[in-house]
C-alpha cells in the first residue's frame, strides 16, 4: 500500500516538475517582478538612531545621497527643497561643538498630520510620516506646524524625476525615510551612505533588532522630546 502511495507521489512530483518547467519560464519571470501584496502593519515602527559623536564635521555624504536618491537639486536657497540638513551646533559656554543630520523626525503624534486640512499629510501604519501629493493642495499649514522645520514646498515645475519618487510643483514634501527603498527591503539612502555608519536604521518595535538593542544600552534623546510627539529618530551624544 505504502509502495503504491510512494509511486503515485513521485509520479505526481515529476509530472508537476515537468509542467512547471514547461509553463514556468514566462510566469516565473513575471512573478519575480511582483512587489509586496500585503499592507504595511503597525507591528513595525521604523526609526533611526543617529550617533552624533561619530558624525564628522564637514561631511555631507548623507545629504548628497538623499539628494541623488530623491532627485533634489541640492540648492540651499529658501525655495529649494531640503529633506535632510547637516546642522553644526556649538555649546557656547563649554565650547563643545558637534554636527548632526536633521530631517523629518517621523513623530508618533505628528503635528503636520493634525493640521492638514485635506488629509494629505498622514502617518503610515509602520510609523512613516508622508504627504499624499494627490491630495496636497499646497497650503503649507504642515510646514508651519512642524517644530523641526523638516518640510519643503516645491515652487518650480520639475522634470526628469526618479520614477520611484514622484515630486511636483505646488505640493509639500519631506523625508520619506526612503519609503520606496524600505518597501523593497533596502535601507534609506542616507543610512547606507554614511561613511562612519552613524545612522542606524531599523524596527523600533522588534526587541531583537540592532537599533532596539542599542537604544537599550546607550543614552539617547529625541529632539524636543518635551513636545511629547515621540519622534522615531533618536540621537546619541547630544
Amino acid at each position, binding site marked *: 500500500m505504502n509502495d503504491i502511495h510512494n509511486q503515485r507521489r513521485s509520479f505526481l512530483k515529476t509530472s508537476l516538475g515537468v509542467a512547471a518547467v514547461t509553463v514556468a519560464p514566462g510566469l516565473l519571470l513575471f512573478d519575480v517582478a511582483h512587489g509586496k501584496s500585503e499592507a504595511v502593519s503597525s507591528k513595525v515602527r521604523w526609526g533611526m538612531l543617529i550617533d552624533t559623536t561619530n558624525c564628522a564635521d564637514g561631511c555631507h555624504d548623507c545629504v548628497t545621497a538623499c539628494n541623488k536618491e530623491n532627485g533634489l537639486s541640492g540648492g540651499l536657497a529658501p525655495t529649494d527643497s531640503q529633506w535632510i540638513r547637516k546642522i553644526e551646533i556649538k555649546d557656547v559656554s563649554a565650547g563643545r561643538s558637534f554636527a548632526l543630520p536633521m530631517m523629518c523626525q517621523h513623530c508618533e503624534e505628528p503635528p503636520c498630520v493634525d493640521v492638514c486640512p485635506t488629509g494629505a499629510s498622514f502617518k503610515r501604519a509602520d510609523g512613516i510620516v508622508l504627504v499624499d501629493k494627490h491630495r496636497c493642495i499646497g497650503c503649507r499649514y504642515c510646514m508651519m506646524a512642524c517644530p523641526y522645520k523638516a518640510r519643503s514646498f516645491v515652487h518650480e515645475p520639475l522634470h526628469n*524625476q526618479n520614477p520611484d519618487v514622484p515630486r511636483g510643483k505646488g505640493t509639500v514634501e519631506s523625508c520619506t525615510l526612503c519609503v520606496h527603498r524600505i518597501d523593497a527591503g533596502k535601507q534609506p539612502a542616507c543610512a547606507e551612505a554614511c561613511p562612519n555608519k552613524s545612522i542606524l536604521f531599523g524596527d523600533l518595535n522588534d526587541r531583537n533588532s540592532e537599533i532596539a538593542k542599542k537604544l537599550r544600552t546607550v543614552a539617547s534623546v529625541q529632539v524636543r522630546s518635551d513636545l511629547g510627539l515621540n519622534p522615531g529618530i533618536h540621537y546619541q551624544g547630544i
Partner: protein
Amino acid sequence: MNLMSDQSLRISSPVVLLQMIVRGYLRMDLKVIIRALLVMCLLVLCMPSVWAAQDTPYKLDIGRGGQCVRDPVWMRKNHMHLLIHQRDEVVHKGIRDDKISLKNCIECHASTKDDSVIAREDSFCVACHRYEAVKIDCFECHSGTRKSVWLQRNAK
C-alpha cells in the same frame, strides 16, 4: 413612380440597398438594380478605411506592448479606475503590486524610440488624451520614462 428618387435619400443601410435590388428585379427595372449594386460596391470599397478609422482615429505608439493586465478594450475605458485604486493602496498602505502600477504601464508602453509615454504627439498617453481632450496631470510629478532607462541616464 420613380423608385430611385424615393430611396436615394436613405441608402445608408445595406438592407435598404438589398430591398432596392429585389424591388428592381420584381419590376424588371435594370437601372435601379445597377444603381443599387454600384452604391453597394462603393460602400464595400470604403469598408477598410472605415474600420481603420473606428479603431484609432489617431496615430498611437504602443511601445513594446504585449499582454496587458486586462483586456485592451476594457483598459481603454477603465484604466483610470485601476490607477486611482492602486495609487491609494501604494501611498497609504504600501501595497506595491507591480502588476497593476503606473510604473508597469510605462515599462510596457513607453515608446521603443525614446522610452517615454509622453515625449511625442503620438506617445502612448498623449495621443489618446489629446484626441479626447482630457488633460492629465499625472506626469507633472510622475516620470514618464522607463525606470531602467532613467537609471542609465542618471548613472553619474
